């Protein structure tokens, strides 16, 4: 069918090699390969299967919270309380375990804690929609960390590694593949699928691109924000579980700065803080870039403080690249 004036509108995506190769993900692929080449030249064991898997285990627990963080950024929101949420969830887990509660139940308590923390963020932000998420989650960041500190003070609660299956969540392997990596891949595939292939995902993008138009299109904006903030709390607790399994004990100062690292991974992966942008393959690449870079810098015994300098610089330079490119374009024209 054509229009009245005889025009037809093309419904097939025009393909061009130029746009294909100008995709953000290619830059990330190059970065990823570069970092792996660097690591391989630093350690002869790195490229062996076990070596690579060990490398992923050094950072993947944080990556669980980066998955829902990408959703938050798509919505145009932000959540900087996830580090504190993870800490409080881990503290609750260890606290109840030391009271003699069975580990299975402790894990449920941990997940509930995270979920409730996320739901509180969501509730405040959806009932008082004019509040800025940055400010609200800054408040709960301090609040959740404060509760954890009130519970433990300077002490640590430990003994978690005496439950073999629990510590295996982090340390265990199936063949040579770490259990945590398998869990992460499953979660990442689900998150990516939901974002790119379902109504829910499309609605996230719509809200991030234009909240008002999304509402007029019949999308329940506040309900969806509530779901995503709550989900983020739950996944902060998932991070907490793997972290507790790794360390065997918890303190009130763990998981500090995780929120920023999760946001950094998402932004590097192409998710803009303005909302409505970003694709999941980019996020996964970015998670591995940041993680592998940290691992590589560890191989050369770089102090962790200096590592932050390198990662921060990497983030700034990479997100600046597209702008530098357009800057040159303008100059050429003028």
């Amino acid at each position, binding site marked *: 069918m054509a*229009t*009245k004036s005889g025009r037809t509108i093309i419904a097939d995506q025009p393909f061009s090699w130029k746009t294909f190769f100008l995709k953000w993900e290619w830059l990330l692929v190059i970065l990823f390969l570069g970092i792996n080449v660097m690591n391989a030249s630093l350690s002869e064991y790195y490229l062996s299967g076990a070596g690579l898997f060990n490398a992923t285990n050094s950072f993947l627990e944080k990556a669980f919270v980066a998955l829902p963080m990408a959703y938050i950024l798509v919505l145009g929101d932000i959540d900087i309380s996830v580090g504190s949420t993870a800490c409080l969830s881990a503290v609750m887990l260890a606290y109840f375990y030391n009271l003699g509660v069975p580990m299975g139940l402790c894990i449920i308590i941990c997940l509930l804690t995270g979920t409730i923390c996320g739901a509180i963020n969501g509730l405040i932000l959806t009932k008082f929609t004019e509040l800025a998420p940055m400010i609200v989650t800054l408040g709960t960041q301090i609040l959740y960390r404060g509760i954890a500190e009130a519970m433990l003070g300077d002490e640590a609660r430990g003994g978690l590694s005496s439950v073999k299956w629990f510590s295996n969540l982090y340390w265990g392997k199936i063949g040579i593949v770490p259990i945590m990596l398998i869990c992460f891949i499953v979660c990442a595939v689900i998150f990516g699928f939901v974002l790119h292939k379902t109504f829910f995902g499309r609605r996230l993008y719509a809200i991030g691109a*234009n909240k008002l138009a999304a509402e007029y299109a019949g999308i329940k904006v506040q309900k969806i924000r509530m779901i995503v903030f709550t989900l983020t709390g739950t996944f902060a607790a998932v991070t907490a579980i793997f972290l507790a399994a790794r360390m065997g004990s918890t303190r009130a100062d763990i998981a500090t700065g995780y929120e920023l690292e999760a946001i950094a991974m998402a932004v590097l992966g192409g998710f803009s803080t303005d909302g409505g942008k970003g694709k999941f393959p980019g996020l996964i690449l970015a998670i591995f870039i940041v993680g592998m870079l940290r691992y590589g810098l560890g191989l050369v015994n770089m102090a962790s403080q200096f590592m932050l300098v390198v990662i921060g610089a990497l983030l700034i330079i990479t997100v600046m690249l597209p702008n530098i490119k357009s800057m040159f374009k303008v100059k050429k024209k003028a």
Partner: protein
Amino acid sequence: MELSEYVLELKGITKIFPGVKALDHVSFQLKPGEIHALMGENGAGKSTFIKVITGVHKAEEGEMYLDGQKVDFKGPKDAQKAGIAAIYQHVTAYPHLSVTENIFMGHEIKKRGIIQWKEMNDLADSYLQELNADFKSTAEMGALSVAQQQMVEIAKAISMKARIIIMDEPTAALTKNESEQLYKITEKLRDDGASIIFISHRFEDMYRLATRVTVFRDSQYIGSYDVNGITNADLIKAMVGREISDMYPKPEVKIGEEVFRVEKLTRMGYFKDVSFNVRKGEILGLTGLVGAGRTETVQTIYGVEHYDSGKMYLNGQEITVKNPSDALRQGIGLLPEDRQHQGLILDWGIGRNITLTEIASLGKNGMTDEKSERAKAKELAERVDTKAVTIFDKASSLSGGNQQKIVVAKILASDLKVIILDEPTKGVDVGAKAEIYEIMGELAKQGYAIIMISSEMPEILGMSDRIVVMCEGKVTGELKRGEAAQEEILKFAMARSPKAAKN
């Protein structure tokens, strides 16, 4: 060097955006001390042209002369220095700052780096006095009406000693009285020696003010004419490129039984006891002055806002609507007043915009179905005759009229019984207007019940089967097609209560 006849002259200006020629060898001449109207459909290139003059855009080709001297603006600062100021339709002010701060933004009066507030306030007050303004320089910008904010922008132009002032649809958001005041100010500016380019969709603006008029169409210069001795028909032909024989193609439709009814709908502080109904195949015009509560009423029906009391019936059954999703599910759709913010995601392709409300019914099991979405989007985009190449064209790349057609297509994607159109032709050019009326007529034929809000009297009279008039949150009158005349409607629109109007 010979003195030029023109204060501003542009020759062969061409501006290319990726994929589009926004201006194609356009010429323009402005005489000193004249008010020159610039007209053309939306998307004809007027806004781009203004941005070239003010140095915001740089033209790929062409020359620009000020008093016969060739100039080459590197940016807006250069244009400002040369005495060119623009007053935009949507005031680009800082709402939280004072009037003084807005006037002097960017050229504050300073002594040794310290801002001289007293001096600036005094000067601002003197400008405002000159303009007969009824507010002070210390007022907060955001607290002023649109007309008052425009006055501030004009004061700003005066403060910069602008010799060439460009006004981009300044009367679009003004009432009749406010427009009249603006006319007077504009004339005063001219008498004080400024040359003025006045952009407007309204013919009355042009007749009232301008001595000459230039018309653009499809990015091209069509011609310049003396206002004396030109007719509406000539102008429309120049702007549209064809004659529009029947502006309001209202088809004769057999009107069926009642589809939708509201009874005593009330939202405290906005509207009270609003009752009306609409039948199958009927176009119900809902009119009144700005602020009469029409938009608030339909937003409530659509579930964007809540209501305090009252009932709604669809096909005789009482319904409740808590949010737009409820409304859409039950068959009520709304074309919102502000298409750019409420109707469209400008950053998205037109296809995704069209199918946004219906992704669930086009897919299954929670998953989207790109293929059926694309087919649906193509079908609907063609049905409303959108000027687009692919369904992946960004909504922001279309002109106002074509954007509005996309919002119409978006409504058509849903399975509706009642369609509410809030100012469907606002900011839409003559050609696209006629097309939108045609679509409305077809929808009525297909049996939709249509509620159309409009402030434009000819539109209300031309398209409605029945007219409901509101004033200050209440329904003050109802008129049938044929018996309604402009005076009648105005009487109801200004009636404080239904009684007063009947007497």
